[in-house]
């Protein structure tokens, strides 16, 4: 994992510097009287006059000490910025996954229980549509419909969960629904497919022959085995969610890590970009590790090491 993170660090360090323009130009803006002296002074201030290898060495040495540096635009420590923004994104991701599972699993199970029925058809078409709709469009449509016809929209000013849970959940409802839609569709399709396979197995036939009720067959016998691939899908979906988070946070004005990253990219705030991507990559790896562990819990046949 450490080697992977080091590779990501090198990659993000180089990639962000490939983008033309630096924080100096962003700060000065168009039209400023720019003498070579002013430019030199500002570049020295940000350490941009140093060779790339030196800049990287300084940065990675700080990272090794647990210090991600400071934002060049705001001077706030990157860790502090992430400490305030990551919980927002984490909450959004968890709620989105919850929506995906709460909708996707039951829908997938029902669809598998009635294959080739009208319900099955609706689920299959609906899930394809849900996968195709871009998150930014869906979010904007939600805002429009709710504000226009219901005269309601999520609060535009962030309320932390700890301060006012109900207000926070009201704020997060539409973003979670937006972000969870595509994931829910994926979960529904995977659940349907796994359930169909599980329902065709001998142990299910045996259970039915022994007189076990339909619900018990579905829930206790088939579903548990069908969930194993779903866990894998959810783990992979975290990667999709990380990308979707940037868009959804922008549409719904959430102060999360996605929006932090987007602003930092536009402002060429290298420490924030590098630190945020590194932390998100580490989190992604941890989540997938958790998915692998859960896999082993659900399926005793799987053992690592």
């Amino acid at each position, binding site marked *: 994992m450490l080697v992977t993170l080091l590779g990501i660090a090198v990659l993000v360090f180089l990639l962000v510097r490939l983008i033309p*323009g630096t924080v100096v*130009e962003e700060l*000065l803006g168009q039209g400023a009287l*720019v003498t070579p*002296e002013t430019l030199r002074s500002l570049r020295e201030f940000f350490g941009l006059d140093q060779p790339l290898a030196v800049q990287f060495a300084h940065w990675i040495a700080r990272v090794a000490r647990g210090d991600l540096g400071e934002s060049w*635009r705001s001077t706030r420590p990157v860790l502090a910025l992430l400490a305030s923004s990551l919980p927002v994104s984490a909450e959004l991701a968890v709620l989105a996954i919850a929506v995906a599972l709460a909708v996707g699993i039951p829908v997938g199970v029902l669809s598998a229980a009635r294959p080739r029925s009208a319900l099955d058809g609706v689920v299959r078409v609906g899930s394809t549509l849900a996968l195709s709709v871009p998150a930014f469009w869906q979010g*904007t449509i939600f*805002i429009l419909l709710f504000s*226009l016809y219901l005269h309601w929209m999520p609060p535009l000013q962030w309320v932390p969960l700890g301060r006012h849970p109900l207000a926070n959940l009201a704020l997060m409802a539409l973003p979670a629904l937006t972000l969870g839609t595509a994931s829910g569709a994926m979960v529904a399709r995977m659940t349907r497919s796994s359930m169909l396979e599980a329902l065709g197995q001998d142990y299910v036939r045996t259970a039915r022959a022994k007189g076990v009720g339909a619900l018990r067959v579905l829930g206790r016998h088939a579903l548990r085995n069908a969930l194993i691939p779903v866990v894998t899908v959810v783990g992979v979906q975290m990667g999709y969610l990380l990308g979707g988070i940037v868009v959804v946070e922008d549409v719904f004005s959430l102060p999360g890590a996605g929006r932090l990253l987007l602003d930092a990219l536009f402002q060429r705030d290298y420490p924030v970009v590098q630190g945020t991507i590194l932390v998100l990559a580490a989190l992604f790896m941890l989540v997938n590790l958790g998915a692998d562990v859960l896999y082993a819990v659900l399926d005793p046949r799987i053992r690592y090491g």
Partner: protein
Amino acid sequence: MQRVTRREFLKVAAATGLGAAGAQAGERLAWAAPPRRGGTLVFATSALPASIEPHLEGADIWQKRKPLVYENLVWIDYALQPQPQLAEAWERKSDTVYVFKVREGVKFHNGKTLDAEDVKYSYERVMDPKTGSGGRGDLVMIKRIDVLDRYTLRFVLSGPSAPFLINLGGKYNGVIPKGSAPTGRELLQRAVGTGPFSVESFQPNQRLVLKRHDQYWQPGVPYLDGITFIAVPDESSIVAGLRTNQIHMADFANTLYYFQVRSVGHLDVIRAPSIRWVVLDLAGDMAPTSHPDVRRAIELALDRQVILQTAGSGLGERLGVLPPAMKGWALAPSRLPNQAPNPDEARALLRRALPGGAGSLTIRTIVGFPELGASLQVIVDQLRAVGLGVRVETVDIGVWIKDFLARRSPPTMNVWGGFVDPDQAFYRHYHTPPDGMDFRRWNNREADRLLDEGRVTLDRASRQKIYAQFQVLMAQDPISIPLYAPDLVYALQKTVKGFRPHPTGFYYGVRYVSLTG
């Protein structure tokens, strides 16, 4: 809603209980009913700055809000004239010596009393090349600043300077306590000014909370307890927020939202002329626009009214050179050459300039500036109609700024403003180095001569003639083709009273806002 001219706005303002909120000093607000005190205004825009440094942060999204927190010796009123602010009065002793009497009893947000040393420190900080302020160029005429006594300052200039007073009120300035920013990092996230509001909290790019400065030097104002600025990147969400009463007021970057908000019954919508222009900048050292005939052909090929109607949805003014909101300076298009589209003459000029046949050029536009992309689409069609091919190049703003400041940008769409004097609009941008930057590499000696003369001519009538000649020159040999000035568009709940849009788009008018109900 009808587009509001200044005269009409004042009539409506009087009818709804507003007064002529003009200069701070020497004028009193005349209210039909006294404004209600209290309340916090929630004001949404699509972005907020990453820092609130008074002398370093050049972003327009901070500059607009800065007059609420920081002040200067003078401020620029709605007629674009310098008026007393932290200076109670001044005297021009000679063409190069000005003596200012600093207002007594002014308190900074930290309780310190303002004196002349603070003023000297603040302006010298902007002038210091080591500070790296983008506003240094506006103060190059100042040779030295002398403190004569606790409340008296003398500015000695290196030569006569017509924009000197205007530039003292410039957007990069702001008086801070002496010694409050030794390293340049102290005021990135906090503010210590003298303005009607202090900064209670600031989350970069997201939220800026101001609270009333209880010791503000002007009695009776501000009326609000505070202002909360929020950044809502998607402006359709701002419309929804206005509709659901979460937001009191909004300033739209994309004027198209005007059509959405005007249909919402409980909102007032203000359109006002702006000193801002959407421009096609050409490159004086890159073929084919290095040839004056090609530049002229491009100008004659364009129908600017169509560009305004199509790209700007008609929300603005078609331009000659300067925006009409710069009253007293802007020449009407009827008084400038090459304003009416003439495709036949454009083709003839191109045949003369490019005898080899059809030419083509690259024009750059910027991601995140929809008005530029929309204008460019119309421009491409109009240029193709006269036989000039166009390759569109879309770049990120960071790329654009880098190339523009390095003076190597190809022909490009551009949008900027906020200047209140023609010297501010023209000198830095069009004068050759080392005195200016000539970003577009025009290298026009006659332009240099006119700009130098306009800078040192103190008589206003004479200056008007000089800058009239400059505008004619720019229309004859167009290194920049100003297309239109987009209107300022604000939406307010009907409970918001007292707001007056300033032509620069800066929020001077928010100082006198009150909330009813």
